[in-house]
């Protein structure tokens, strides 16, 4: 009789999954990298020979740098504001008697379609929308304000979309926080605010870092939000990639911008892992923390 010494199962069982991801995720990503070094075809597509001209073209275009810079600052501002709102909200929820109820309240808006929630903001910010009608009826303005199609309308909607991603990990780390530590700090003479900043915040920094990651990276990759509420003034990198591919039909250039984007995203991830001083294995833990909350409300 054969004795099974190895723990677990044959890798064979996970082969279909990895094969699928290899064919439909890794290969397409590699194709983008290859295409970014090819010459644009006359009617879309890409041709030989290999060249660096796409990179040269995008790096020498001021439009690209403007949009890249805008993408980064829109995402950074949204992430910071999200954090500023999520910290007190998660603190309140984690210390509340009605935790589950309040967490469900945070999740419910998520059950509406993503685009419809963007549309809700278009109704609020539009030229004959809620804010303009209110201000007009109060006699404060005579002509409608242009609230849509600005970088900051993109910021508002990004905060709106990703706020729960910031709240969940912070909430779950505050929930695990031992409040006796705060008491001890205050017994030892720290003021409340000092105890907060020196004891609570360092203790939940893993949750904060996870929240920042979960908001900042998707914000960088926004496509639908700037497409609908950004206009030309609020266009982001995702819109530029799509425009190069679909309007200019310049595949290598679109691929090159995608590669730059890929590098920025990976870099963001790398910085996160460094700051958090954890390895990839623990990224799984972070995701688990996030999804566990969702799991919990289902239980």
């Amino acid at each position, binding site marked *: 009789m054969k004795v*099974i010494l190895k*723990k*677990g*199962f*044959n890798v064979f*069982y*996970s*082969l*279909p*999954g*990895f094969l*699928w991801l290899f064919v*439909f*995720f890794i290969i*397409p990503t590699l*194709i983008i990298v290859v295409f970014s070094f090819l010459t644009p075809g006359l009617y879309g*597509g890409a041709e030989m020979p290999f060249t660096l001209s796409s990179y040269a073209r995008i790096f020498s275009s001021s439009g690209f740098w403007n949009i890249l810079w805008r993408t980064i600052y829109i995402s950074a501002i949204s992430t910071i504001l999200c954090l500023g*709102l999520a910290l007190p909200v998660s603190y*309140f*929820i984690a*210390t509340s008697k009605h935790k589950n109820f309040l967490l469900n*309240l*945070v999740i419910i*808006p998520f*059950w*509406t*379609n*993503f*685009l*419809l*929630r963007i*549309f809700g903001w278009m*109704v609020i910010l539009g030229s*004959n929308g809620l804010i303009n*009608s209110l201000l007009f009826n109060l006699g404060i303005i005579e002509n409608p304000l242009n609230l849509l199609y600005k970088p900051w309308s993109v910021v508002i909607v990004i905060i*709106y979309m990703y*706020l729960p991603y910031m709240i969940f990990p912070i909430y779950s780390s505050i929930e695990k926080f031992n*409040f006796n530590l705060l*008491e001890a700090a205050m017994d030892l003479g720290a003021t409340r605010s000092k105890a907060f900043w020196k004891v609570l915040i360092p203790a939940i920094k893993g949750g904060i870092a996870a929240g920042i990651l979960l908001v900042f*990276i*998707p914000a960088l*990759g926004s*496509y*639908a939000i700037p497409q609908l509420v950004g206009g030309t003034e609020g266009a982001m990198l*995702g819109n530029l*990639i*799509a425009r190069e*591919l679909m309007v200019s039909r310049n595949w290598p250039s679109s*691929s090159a911008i*995608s590669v730059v*984007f*890929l590098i920025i*995203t990976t870099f963001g991830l790398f910085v996160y892992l460094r700051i958090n001083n954890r390895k*990839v*294995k623990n*990224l799984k833990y972070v*995701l688990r923390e996030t*999804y566990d909350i969702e799991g919990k409300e*289902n*239980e």
Partner: protein
Amino acid sequence: MNSQKIIGKRRFSLLMTIFGFVFLYLPIAILVIMSFNDARQGVAWNGFTLKWYSELFKNGDIWKAFWSTAWIAFTSAAIATVIGTFTAIGFYWRKGKFKRIGSITILSPLIFPDILMGISLLIFFIALKFPLGYPTILIAHITFCISYVAIVVNSRLEDFDYSIIEAARDLGAKNMQVILKVIIPSVFPAIIAAFLLSVTLSVDDFVITFFVTGPGATTLPLQIYSMIKMGVSPIINALSTILLVLTLFVSFLGVKFQKFIF
């Protein structure tokens, strides 16, 4: 008990929480209220009406998009749940390089922005001369759902007592028997949760679908997008209200169903 003293009066955090909830619910409330407003344009209240709902139900495009969204979501979630569950089981107890590379492979589709996956799949399909349409949408949805399923199941395996598997093996169970009769039943709630998560992700996906769709293929998010772009008709408000009620109902059922399993 002096915990109140430690936690504080929470005046500031209460204020921010109220603000946060107003912020979260305002756009949705507006859509629901406007769906009963008789006015075609603007937010001024013009009287109660249900006509947007009747127009919505008469709209053939929306029905077509609704049914294609439904079958795409259930098909891709079912396929991804089977593949993803086995991926997690075959992979969870591995160690070393395989585990590291595998983790990165599974996590990457979740971490990299949707737009990159959309663009790269589009270029991949066109380069292979693969006709764009429902099959490509299905493939794309299965791809990102596999990752989610594998992660959800994987995280439940962490709470799984390995000695149960050893016991089953000692009693002569083959690998497949162990998986089907021991592991899957005990992580079944996670598998159901992963399936439901996949359904919602597929139903809600716009960006990736937008890039890999082809002539004639449409889903609800694509339909909503074109309605928003084309000029706003209040039937969108009616649609949002119905979707909100529907998703609330489905989630409620999900909660009940999970309780039933436990």
